[in-house]
């Protein structure tokens, strides 16, 4: 390794919380998890678990379990041997181990597979086994490293439900690393965004995705409309001058050079100008229409390009074509400034 560097990572995770960490490949997510688990000693800083400083403790004394994307089931052991592996380390009596293994397997609906070897299982079954192997230890913290990335869509959805149920049932504290946003919204109590070895934002999923606080997150979370301009204060709001176009925002703090974003679904497209309370209304020409199946992405040039997303129904109703003139409308509160 050696190439990956984590710096300034500060994370507070509440007891029983489900924290999801997102970030692009190479952001240092896995290294962060493995450092928490005790595989790599940090150069500086400390790791506190339930009030105890565990920075110098070997992994086996931390009571933190890891589930990896590619399962890492021990191929020379059966499903039962895998799930019971940690309990054997704890030198629990054999009948007690057997009881708990069966319990955990039943919870994940793999109790009929106990005698099988991992290489005879499907991906979903393997990941269930890996999860059972971890939760049977009743860990103080469960680390999931892209646990669903190797699975097909249907299996993934099943396991998302499964994880949510397990989390509710056991009240385990979970840190779940992913680059899939479905998993964020389905599972996260809180989401942390990582880039380049750093946590760049942390908060409730809605908050992070509505009000991204830097250009990186905006890009990463799929915010299409990012503008740079100069901000000036007005009564009750502020005006942002972007290449001669004035956008009204209710969130602008202070004056000067700023970045502003508007999420595509917040921009309304219409044939006629709409009389409404929305403060921003522009006339523009459609330059591009992209059909994404569920939604249609329409790019409108109103001096600067705006991207708007409309539903298929809305699209068919409006009969939009490239080169036509339309009106764009969005609220001042939809303009997020950072």
């Amino acid at each position, binding site marked *: 390794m050696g190439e990956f560097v984590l710096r300034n990572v500060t994370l507070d995770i509440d007891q029983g919380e489900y924290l999801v960490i997102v970030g692009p490949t190479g952001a240092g997510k896995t290294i962060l998890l493995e450092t928490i*688990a005790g*595989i790599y000693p940090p150069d500086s800083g400390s790791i506190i678990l339930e009030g105890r400083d565990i920075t110098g403790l070997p*992994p086996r004394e931390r009571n*933190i379990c890891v589930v990896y994307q590619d399962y*890492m089931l*021990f191929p020379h052991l059966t499903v039962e041997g895998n799930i019971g592996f940690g309990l054997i380390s704890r030198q629990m009596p054999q009948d007690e181990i057997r009881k708990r293994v069966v319990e955990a397997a039943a919870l994940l609906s793999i109790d009929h597979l106990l005698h099988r070897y991992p290489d005879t299982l499907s991906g979903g079954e393997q990941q269930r086994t890996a999860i059972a192997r971890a939760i049977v230890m009743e860990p103080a913290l469960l680390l999931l490293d892209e646990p669903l990335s190797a699975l097909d869509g249907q299996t993934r959805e099943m396991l998302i439900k499964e994880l949510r149920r397990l989390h509710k049932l056991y009240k385990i504290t979970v840190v779940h690393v992913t680059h899939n946003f479905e998993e964020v919204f389905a599972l996260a109590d809180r989401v942390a965004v990582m880039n380049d070895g750093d946590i760049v934002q942390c908060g409730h999923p809605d908050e992070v995705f509505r009000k991204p606080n830097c250009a990186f997150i905006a890009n990463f979370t799929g915010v299409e409309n990012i503008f740079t301009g100069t901000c000036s204060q007005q009564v009750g709001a502020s005006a942002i001058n972007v290449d001669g176009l004035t956008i009204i925002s209710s969130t602008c703090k202070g004056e000067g050079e700023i970045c502003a974003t508007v999420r595509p679904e917040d921009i309304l497209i219409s044939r006629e100008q709409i009389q409404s309370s929305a403060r921003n209304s522009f006339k523009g020409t459609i330059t591009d229409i992209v059909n994404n199946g569920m939604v249609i992405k329409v790019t409108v040039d109103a001096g600067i390009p705006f991207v708007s997303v409309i539903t298929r129904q809305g699209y068919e109703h409006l009969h939009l074509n490239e080169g036509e003139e339309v009106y764009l409308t969005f609220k001042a509160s939809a303009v997020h400034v950072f």
Partner: protein
Amino acid sequence: MEQHAKRVAKSHKNTGMKDLRNSWLKYATIAVGILLALFIVILLALIVTKPTPEGLFASIMSEEIHFAIILSLLTSLVSTFLCILIGVPAAYALARYLFKGKNVVNALLDMPLALPPLVAGLGLLLFFGTTNIGRGLAEIGLTFVFTPLGIIAAQFFVNIPFMLRIMRSTFESINPRYEYVAKTLGCSDAQALWRVTLPMSAPGFFAGSVITWAKGIGEFGAALLLAGAIKWKTETLPIALFLNMSCGNLNMAISAATILIIISVVALYIFERYGGASRF
């Protein structure tokens, strides 16, 4: 224009098919491979069929050959055990840890592979015969020069790279995350190695042991220099082959050779069967 293009495409297709079916390179290389295999079979067959079956059987049942078989088995088993004892930990370190001078150590450990066994034997002879360490060992009863102990030392030194290389590539092929998981499940470093990595490397371990053992049985050059070719003392199968050949005792020589051939075939089979990913 379009028609022309079609015609070109068609003619291309035809010559293409012809090339595919009649590649001279394919036939030439296959022929080389088959000829070489034939040559090997002929050599082996020549050895085994040279004496009469009765003569061969009598030689194999002779006391001298029995002595050689037993000495070969004993020395090779002990030297294989030593190769495991030293080779497995060293291979693990080379596969798992980063340390200063790792590349140099890696290269040096492979050195005996490239070294002619006679040269290795000369070095061993000087080490055990002329240094204080060698003399000290002799004083406490461990005499290596011209003794069966010397055979073990020679086999060990020449064959340790085989064990090392096979185990190194075996360990390297096992994702260290298996050990990480084991450690979070309550294992110490050593327990993770014992309960996860070693069982997972069983096929490589088996293949490495077999190849090391088979090479040990056939070891001649280094053993000749360090342990000598002494009848009824350091006479392993290859030495028996050499001694009997030198004094024209063809039947005895060939019976030793036949046993060596059988051992090689069995070892090769086991290695191919279980070596799998750990070929090197």
